[in-house]
């Protein structure tokens, strides 16, 4: 493992992208920052611009209006970066599968522009914060 990889693992900065989620996963993601879960312990930091990010936390099954924006955010994120599909919707559109306005799921949209993208899945509705942390840790260990 090179020093660069190790540095990414020690300091993963994440940017949060909602592509049509019901807010639950998003709240749980924000919850990760707060005292009970405090992911700053692992050097994880939520940043305000995709240009600063190492990982995208994507929630929601990707609506037609959101898809182009998701692609744009992915393009703006400096590589290497990991895409996390958080929640049932992001992993496979969930309960909204039959919706006429849904074009996802997340991996399909991302792979359209980057077939080699690194995508990790954290299912659940919503996944518990512990599950999200565990997902991020496992994905980082797999790099």
């Amino acid at each position, binding site marked *: 493992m090179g020093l660069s990889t190790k540095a990414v693992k*020690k300091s993963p900065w994440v940017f949060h992208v909602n592509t049509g989620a019901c807010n639950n996963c998003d709240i749980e993601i924000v919850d990760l920052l707060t005292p009970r879960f405090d992911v*700053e312990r692992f050097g994880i930091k939520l940043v305000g611009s995709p240009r600063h990010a190492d990982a995208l936390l994507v929630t929601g099954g990707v609506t037609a209006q959101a898809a182009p924006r998701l692609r744009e955010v992915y393009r703006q994120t400096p590589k290497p970066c990991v895409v996390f599909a958080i929640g049932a919707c992001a992993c496979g559109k969930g309960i909204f599968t039959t919706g006429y306005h849904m074009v996802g799921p997340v991996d399909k949209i991302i792979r359209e522009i980057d077939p080699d993208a690194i995508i990790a899945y954290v299912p659940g509705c919503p996944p518990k914060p512990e599950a999200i942390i565990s997902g991020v840790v496992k994905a980082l260990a797999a790099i």
Partner: protein
Amino acid sequence: MNNEMQVLFWILVFPGFVFTAVLGLLAAWIVRKVSALVQYRVGPPFLQPFWDVRKLLSKEVLIPQEANKWVFIGAPLVGLAGVLLLSTLLGVAAFWPQKTFVGDVIVAIYLMVLPSLALILGSSASASPHAAVGTAREMKLVMGYELPLVLAFIVVIIKSGGALGLAAIAETTPVASISGAVAFLVSLLCIHAKIGYVPFDMAEAETELGSGVLMEYSGGLLALWNLTSAMMLVALPMFLVVVYLGGFGTTPAGITIGLLKYVGVLVLIILIKNTNPRVRIDQAMRFFWIGCGLVLVTAIALATIGNIYDIGWL
């Protein structure tokens, strides 16, 4: 060691780049850790700021299409150079008092503006509307706090009997008088605004402007900004210690006490950061110009009276 080599050593190793960067990143860790503790959290691990910078250095650098490329890349270098020279100047004044030159304190005040100016340059070169609003705020803020900073400094000069050298000023402790204490507190707030912490972080206000001025920076260039702001955490409180709190001294005991003074200033900064909401730029301007301005004019008057009638505690 000949003279050039020694200057190079000062700038690159001690008290310049290596020393300031390491100490600065440590200070950045302390700020984050103490903030976390105040917020009932555990906070980041010890070496976190080092890993952050190391990681950013290995990331891709994206330059916006519409950006002015050379200014965009050059600005963080200028900022870093500014804070580097500032910390060198202060360190030399503190540890090799005989090597300083007359008027270095003026140079120091100029150097302190440099990182802010670089930030304004860099963000206005990035062609992002959020950065543009951030730039406008940063400019107003610079204009806001420079006036009280200089006014406060006049108090120091009066107190030290017209000395214009850092080493000479460091031998006095202006804070031990009413006017000096007032000047110190105002300068502390100005320094706080220079570092860009809450309540004066409107230029980078994450929830209003993305990351504002730094929004378009990524990878190594962002690492330079991180490093610059970490080094500011060393240089600016050190400036306060040298100018207001009697400096470091050259004996081991003096250095220890000096370091304690530095930590004290840092703690004050962290406290202010964590107990205040962000203010609006117009409120900040009013505060710096009218509030601090009036207070400082009074302080200058007091200091002058104290000087004429030889009353030390005024």
